[in-house]
Structure formats: C-alpha cells, structure tokens
C-alpha cells in the first residue's frame, strides 16, 4: 500500500484520472506475456509527457519507491512483472508520432506508440522500418527498445538496436537525458543510445526515440524447402550464407512443429519431414530472381525433398501459412506455452536442434522448435500445464539444459526476448563474473538506489552451471 501523502503528490502531477490503485488496476498490471508470473504493484500511473515522467520520478526517488515502465506488457521474460511492488508506469498516453523527417529519413516518436501503427504510417510514406516482433500489432516502440526486439527480418536488416539513433530518457533521479540524434555518425563519448536499447527498463524510462528509416525493397519472393534430414537443412542455411546471399527471411520448423502445425491448419504437409525452411528474399527484381534461383539450386544440391517457389502473392501467402501458424498451433496444444529464444551461431543450428530434442526426451517433456534459422535464433517451445507442478519442474530442468547447450555451442541464453526475471539466474553463464560486475556498475551509475525495474537482469543468486559431457 502506498502512503496517502505520496499518492497525493503523484496525483498532483498526473491528475486524479491517471493514478490508480484499486484492485482492478493492480491485478491487471501484475503480469505480462510470461507464463506463471504474477506480482501486484502498489499503484499504476499514466504520464502524459516527459515533464510528468520527470516529476513522478523525482517523487518516487525521494521516497525510494520502485518503478516499472510498461508498454503493452507482451514481453516473454517477466520484464514488466513488478516483483518488488512499487509503481507501474504505463506509457500508452505518450503514443504520438512527433515527426517524420523526409530529408534525414528519420522518425521521432513517443514510447507508447504501437509498433504496427508506426509501421503502417511510415509505409504509407514509402519508407521502411524493419524490426517486426511477432507481437507488433500491440507491442509498443518503447517496449521494443527496452527489450531490443528482433523479428523475422533480423537476419538481413538487423534488430531494434540498429534503428534507434537518438533517445530522450528520464533517469531515476528525474533528470532528463538526451542521447544521439538524427546522426548517422556520432562518437561523442560512450554510446548511451545503444546502451539504453535492451536495458529492460533498468537504467531509465525512455520518453522519446529517434528512429532510422530506410527505403523499402521493391519486390519480394517466397519459397519453401522440405527436408528428410535435419543436417541437410542446416547445411542449406550455411551454404546460402557462404554463397554471400543474405535472405530477408530464413525460417525453420522442426518435425515436432510440422506435425502440430499440420494437425491444426490441415495443410497436408508430409509428416516425415525433419525440417522445413521458409526463405524470402527482397530487393530489386533482378537481384531477387537471381538469389532465389541460386537458393533453389542450393536446396536441391542439399537433397531437399521438395522445393516450391511462389509465383504470386497468393502462393507466397500459402507457403507462409505453416510458419505463421506455428505459434497458434503450439499454443492450442496444452494450456501453458513456454516460448524461449536460445540462440547459437547459425552454423550450429543442426547441433542445437538435436540437443533440444535429446533434452526433451530425457526430461519427458514436449518441446517443439521453430525460429529464425538465418540468425541462429531458435524458439524451443514447451507445451505444458501450469497446474502440474511436477511437469513444470521437468520443463524448467529441460530449459536449464537447453541454455547450457546453447552456451556450450558458442551461443546465448536469449537472442531477442531479454533476460528479465526468467533468465537472470543464467546471465552469468553468458557474460561471466566480470561481465556481471561491469553491468552492475553501469546499473549503479544510472540508478544508485535500484528503483528502476528492480529484480530484473541481475539474479539474487546465479545458477550454478553444470557442464554436461556427452559422448
């Protein structure tokens, strides 16, 4: 419960309609898109502008009250669950596009803007903003920046960090920080812009962002290749890259996912396929045609069971159905769906998928894997039931081993979802003791009283890594 006096101070800043602490507001800000996590905040505040954010932060800083910035709450790492209580700061009211600068090809936006609305707006102007997390119909730009969201186009176009060139953010003290600008080059000191991208709300509250826009590709072609052998599919991925082709999309479905998707969408997919690759290339017509026929040849050279190239937009849509249905199909299998994002160098995809399958069998759990093969970012997805605590323990044990395997293969515990609460015990496996200490130093410099999204990224206790030997 928040002290009445502090409540009054907060209401004086945002007005009575934009501070809430009734049961309804607290319960509906106690979770995000992460399964099985819930913690009630003490209040919810909806600031209208940077000045209000600054004033609110000053009050919270004075009283040492934690604050969790929140967009739409779709993250998958427990990033916006207020585990230490405090105030959830919802950025939805700050949702304007402040400027699209056609001379510099930049856009300046507020953090509460829905990603999809932004993309629709700038596409109408003939421009392109590539980051496309699958939650983009409801996720916010601010949330995407906080988590450094990826998406299907990451392989060729990079992720959110590659498009954020300037930020305005409010520090824990209430001071307003400005970084970067409409600048393609800027080496004035540490790159605070990139540091804030992916900082998961632990360093500052982002209140404005300047984003880089690029010209859109003129055409796009889609193809699908199916394999009876996982290694052949993996070799195809490597060969495409070796041949100096960077496809705009290079997605992967494993056999378990293919079966689930086919059962759900009745696509008549051959169920004995060990892997399906969905490949897209965009750009100028000539280059696209050349790349796609080269890729087709590579697929056939790697013994693909079948290769289909879409000749029309409708055909492309059909080929995309399997990949697009993956999440939906998996989500309907069991009540609880746990989607992770272990990532490895793309040359290790086959090894990683086989490790995941071995680990799933070992723990007797269902894990289907799909994801972005082109950038090594896999989504091993466990379908389970939160009410069965014995099974949940097995799922957790399996994921722990999957993270360990990813690290062993030169990968990471998270490629695009963030550390948050869920992966904090494993962070040290990736960045080492020294890495943790440096990060804690940065955290302290920004937020000395640990008020911004406390409990995230840094675990109370790191998990002891058990390196398993397999022979």
């Amino acid at each position, binding site marked *: 419960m928040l002290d009445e006096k502090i409540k009054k101070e907060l209401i004086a800043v945002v007005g009575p309609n934009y501070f809430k602490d*009734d*049961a*309804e*507001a607290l*319960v*509906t*800000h*106690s*979770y*995000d*898109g*992460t*399964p*099985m*996590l*819930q*913690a*009630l*905040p*003490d209040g919810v505040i909806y600031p209208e502008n940077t000045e209000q954010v600054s004033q609110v932060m000053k009050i919270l800083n004075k009283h040492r009250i934690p604050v969790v910035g929140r967009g*739409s*709450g*779709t993250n998958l790492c427990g990033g916006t*669950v*207020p*585990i*230490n*209580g*405090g105030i959830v700061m*919802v950025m*939805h*009211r700050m949702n304007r596009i402040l400027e699209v600068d056609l001379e510099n090809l930049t856009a300046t936006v507020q953090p509460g803007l*829905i990603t*999809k609305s932004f993309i629709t707006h700038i596409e109408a102007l003939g421009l392109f903003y590539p980051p496309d997390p699958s*939650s983009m*119909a*409801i*996720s916010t730009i601010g949330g995407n920046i906080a988590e450094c969201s990826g998406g299907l186009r990451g392989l060729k176009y990079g992720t959110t960090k590659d498009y954020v060139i300037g930020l305005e953010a409010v520090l824990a003290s209430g001071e307003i920080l400005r970084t970067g600008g409409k600048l393609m080059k800027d080496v004035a000191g540490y790159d605070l812009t990139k540091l804030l991208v992916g900082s998961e709300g632990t360093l500052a509250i982002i209140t404005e962002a300047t984003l880089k826009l690029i010209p859109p590709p003129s055409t796009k072609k889609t193809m699908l290749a199916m394999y009876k052998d996982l290694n052949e599919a993996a070799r195809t991925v490597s060969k495409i890259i070796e041949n100096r082709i960077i496809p705009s999309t290079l997605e992967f479905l494993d056999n378990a996912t293919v079966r689930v998707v086919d059962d759900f969408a009745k696509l008549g997919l051959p169920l004995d396929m060990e892997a399906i690759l969905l490949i897209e290339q965009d750009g100028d017509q000539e280059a696209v045609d050349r790349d796609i026929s080269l890729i087709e040849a590579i697929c056939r050279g790697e013994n693909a069971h079948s290769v289909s190239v879409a000749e029309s937009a409708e055909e492309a849509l059909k080929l995309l159905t399997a990949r697009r249905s993956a*999440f*939906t199909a998996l*989500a*309907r299998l069991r*009540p*609880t*769906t746990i989607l992770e994002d272990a990532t490895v160098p793309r040359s290790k995809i086959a090894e990683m998928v086989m490790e995941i399958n071995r680990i799933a069998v070992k723990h007797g759990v269902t894990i289907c894997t799909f994801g972005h093969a082109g950038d090594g970012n896999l989504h091993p997805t466990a379908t389970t*039931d*939160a*009410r069965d*605590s014995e099974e*949940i323990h097995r799922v957790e044990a399996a994921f722990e081993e999957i993270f360990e395997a990813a690290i062993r293969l030169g990968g990471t515990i998270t490629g695009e979802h963030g550390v948050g609460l869920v992966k904090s015990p494993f962070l040290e496996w990736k960045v080492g003791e020294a890495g943790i200490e440096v990060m804690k130093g940065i955290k302290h410099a920004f937020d000395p009283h640990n008020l911004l999204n406390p409990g995230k990224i840094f675990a109370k206790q790191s998990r002891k890594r058990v390196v398993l030997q397999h022979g």
Partner: protein
Amino acid sequence: MAKTMERNDTAASQKEASLTKLNPLAQKLKLNLNEDQLTNCMRCGFCLPACPTFRETGLEAESPRGRIALMKAVADGIMSPDEVFEEQMNHCLGCRACEPACPADVKYGQLIEQARDAIEDHTNSHRWWVKSVRGVVFKQLFPKQNRMRLAGGALQLYQRSGLRSLARGAGLMKLFPEHLRDMEAILPDASPKGIVQRMGTHHRAKGEKIATVGMFRGCLMDVMFTETNVKTVELLSAAGFEVIIPDSQGCCGALHAHSGETSGAKKLARQNIEAFKAANVDYIVSNAGGCGAILTEYDHLLHEEAEWREDAAWFANRVIDISDLLVRHGRLPFFSELAGETNKQNKSDDAASKAAIRITYQDSCHLRNVMRSSNAPRTLMRQVEGVEFVEMHEADRCCGSAGIYNITQPEMAGQLLEHKMENANATAAHYLLTSNPGCLLQMKLGVQKHGCGTQMKVEHIVDFLHERMVEKQAASTIS
C-alpha cells in the same frame, strides 16, 4: 508490499484459504468460471488490438486479457469481486472479436457469460432503467412470442395513433435518459402480425429443391422487421430452398445468455431444439447474426444436460446464416440495380465508377466472430450488377449496439458509434447494409446523430438484395 505469486506453489493453499473467506459472489464466480479456460489464457496480449473497449480507453482492465486476469484473480482468491469488478464485466460488449485473435483459442465468450451469470445472481447495482429494461426483456417479453407480438401491436398503436407525437410533443420523452429517447426515435414501425400470420409455415422451393431449411424468425426480427423475414423466405425459395417456419419456436436466448440469465437461455434453447427437430430440416437458417451465433452454441449451452446433448449438437451443426447458405448451397438469383439507379451521365469505362449506387457493410460481430462468416455477405453484395461495394475501414469493429449494451452502457456505446460513423461517412456510400437487427438500429441512430446530413440508408442485406432480385433470370443462372 507486493508478493510474487508463482502459481504452482501457492494455488492450492490459496484455494483452501479463499473458499472459507470468500463472499457469496466470489464463491459463485469460482464455481461458474471454467478453470481450463482461465488457464488457457497465456496473457500474450494478442487480443488487445481487437478489443473495442481497450481501443477506446487504452486501459488493460478494459481488455479481454485484463478481464480474464480479473476473473482468475477472483477464482484464485487474490481479489474480492467489488463493484468495479461487476462494472468491468458488464463493460465488455461481448462482440467476441478477441476470439479469432486468440492464438490459444480461449473461449472468452463463455467466460464472460459465466462471470455475468454469477454477478446477476448477486448484484443490486443496476441503474433504474437497466433494471426495468432487464425485467421486461428477460422475464416478460422475449421468452413469449405472443407477448412480443402484442407488444409489437402496442408499439404500432403508439407509433400510428398519434400517441407518439403526443408523447414527443408533451415532452414526456424527456423523462427518459437521452440515449433511450434517441433509440425510441429510430425504432421501425412495429407489426403485431409475424411471418407465420402473414405467410403460413410452409413454402416451396422455386425450381428443383436443393434442401429443406427451417427458418429461425427471431423475436425482435419478427415484430420489428417482419418484412425482412418475409423477404428472407422469398429469397430462400428463389434460391432453391423449401422453407419451413416451425411456429413453436421462441426467442433464441442470446440476450439472456450474454446478460447472465443462463437458465432462461437454456429453457429457450430446449424449446427451439424441439421445434426444429420436429420439422426435420437440413439447415436452420438465421438472418440475424446475434441470434445465429447463440443457436450455433446450443450444444455448449446445454453441455451439462446429458439427455439434450445429442439433439443440441444436431441443432447447432445445422445453423447457418442466410448469406452463407445462399453463397455455399443456393442457386443464386441474378441481382441488378433498380431502374433509375443507373448513372447515365458517367461515361467512364471503369465498371466500378460507372455504378451509381455505392454500398458498404457493417459486420455483425457475432456473425463474424462466432459464426465466422464475413466473406459470404461481401460476395453477395459484389454480385449486384451496377452497384459498387466499398469496404468500410474497420467494418469488423463493433458498432456499440451489442444486444442491450447501448441501453445499459450508453457512454461507451455512444463513443464507439461516433467513431464508427467517421468511418461510415468516409465511404460516401448510399447504403450501409447489416446482417443483424441490433446493428441495423444502431447504425440508423448513427446516421441520425453523426450522419453529417448525408442521406445514407441503413438496410438489412436481405432487403437490399430482395429488392434487386431479377426473378425471371433465376432459372437461367443455375451453376
């Protein structure tokens, strides 16, 4: 301070602790709410952009994910259902646009009905007009078709006798809240004679019979839109269907089910199943999305009643909307613009711009989201020769009618309607067509309030098509 609740560890103890402490409403909610469905919601948030009340308010609590979280919090004993909770459950339109958007296939419609059913047993917080409307609608009028007809007669008397002008003139209507006054003004002329009184119960197919369909006439439809029902039968007959209208059928029970009067809905379901079972029809056709949707869910409604399970499934599987039936199974008649509608001045070669009449369509939420039919009405509208169909921006979004929502929740309904009319006006259509009487009345109200002086006509798709059916060509367009 807050505590982390990892469900696995605490759920059992919460359950035990809460059962003893819970107030009666919380206990009823706990009993009513389907635990599997509550668990199935994985809180991904994909439903948020589909939800009209979330879009209007931007508040998580006003979203399907938020409402389910509230229900689950009550079921888990984390919160006690208060007035704000009741209000939030009633603030949902029940448009169910969240269901097609949900990756996990959560049956949100069932959850909200279960919540409302529990609330209705315990609430005393309805405003006076809500109470009286509910009382009349659920207990007195809708369950009894003869009373509906009587009411229709009274309404007709009121409308024709000069009582209406007297009431309006004397300022009597001012006693009612503004939104009720608005509604009264756009009510169509009612009729005490329903379709069976007008046409009898059996109608032959024109040409070779394709199938026998039982027509669900609807209670409101049959009193307020008898003419549309008559035209529905004629359209069906022209398309090759034999039509039977079982006279023992009653109200569909949708308003009951959506408003927490489940037992009333079940009673009506049993009555209707018996009526159509006796008629032994191939299809059960509805011309109102709101009715059709609940009819397809009779199997769920009666799932606890073993002796009804088979018949309810028989019934639910046969239900189909008029547009879908025509497009998928019928011999479509030829539809063409009316004489006088052709634009002779326009010499453009482009067929669409040649058309003098532009039409647009407002989806019925339940037709689209529950019966999952959105293409068939559009296919039919595009087939009318000389008429241009333009898609309205966000035609799939609720207009705010939502059963009796526009009466019980006038503020939100009014806000939705205003935004809806911005999109409707932008189409510059001459006709706005709908597939449900509630939407039709609401859109009429919209044109009256926010039509910006346009003469946009609001019609049921059946009326529009029937008027433009070129009968003599029907036989030659057999496909």
